[in-house]
């Protein structure tokens, strides 16, 4: 039976598949390169995308613990538990630790899987339900959240592709 879950999951898998393709083969230097002193770099962006996925699915919607702490991903990446990305300064981006992209993507794989599972567990009636997002101090509608996740993550994907293109050229 087709449902609202299908377009959402299709979009989630589309952006995530494209993200993995877009970072393929990039060197550590390319991952950390900033077009300007206030620009985000690819590594920061990918890490932040993974954090976004983890938080929305596991904490905000499901009301549980983020994989970041539950599965020790903060520790494995050598990063503070309270780091998320939202509102960070250019200094924080610039000083981002040179963590292995493979490890970030492992975390992201698990966050993405938990996101798909979260969507699979939703029913039509859940779309009208609100959940409280503590880190934003606001109540948000689950239907809105699903659209927002696709919009936010895909914006970042576009940025990652753009930064790669600046470095490697049109089909690089």
């Amino acid at each position: 039976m087709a449902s609202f879950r299908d377009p959402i999951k299709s979009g989630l898998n589309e952006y995530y598949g494209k993200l993995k393709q877009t970072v393929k083969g990039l060197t550590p230097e390319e991952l950390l390169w900033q077009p300007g002193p206030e620009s985000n770099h690819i590594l920061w962006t990918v890490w932040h995308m993974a954090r976004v996925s983890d938080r929305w699915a596991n904490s905000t919607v499901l009301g549980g613990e983020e994989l970041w702490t539950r599965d020790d991903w903060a520790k494995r990446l050598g990063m503070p538990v309270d780091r998320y990305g939202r509102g960070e300064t250019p200094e924080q981006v610039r000083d981002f630790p040179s963590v292995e992209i493979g490890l970030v993507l492992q975390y992201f794989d698990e966050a993405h899987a938990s996101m798909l599972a979260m969507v699979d567990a939703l029913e039509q009636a859940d779309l009208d339900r609100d959940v409280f997002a503590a880190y934003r101090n606001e109540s948000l509608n689950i239907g809105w959240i699903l659209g927002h996740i696709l919009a936010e993550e895909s914006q970042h994907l576009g940025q990652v592709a753009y930064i790669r293109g600046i470095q490697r050229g049109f089909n690089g």
Partner: protein
Amino acid sequence: MKTGIEFESSGYGQSPDDVRSLPGVNIADLVQYFDDVRAASFRVVDGISDDELATVFTRRDRSITWSWILGHVLVEESQHLGQVAFIRGMIRGLGG
């Protein structure tokens, strides 16, 4: 016609030269076009039932469904939005 851009053109597969040679279109006209498209799109989406989400179309020799199209439009448009924001940030700086 208002924008001076060919009817068939959507941007897909264009080259850097094509990008550079886009006519100097009035941004207000583009936004108006976009508003019209968005309103029409909402009417289409409002008309799709759950069962119809699985309807198959053929495009560029591929089979796609309404589910794929809806997800794809969000993903593709948002990618470009992110690029627009990034370019603006490069020009104007972080809070610009």
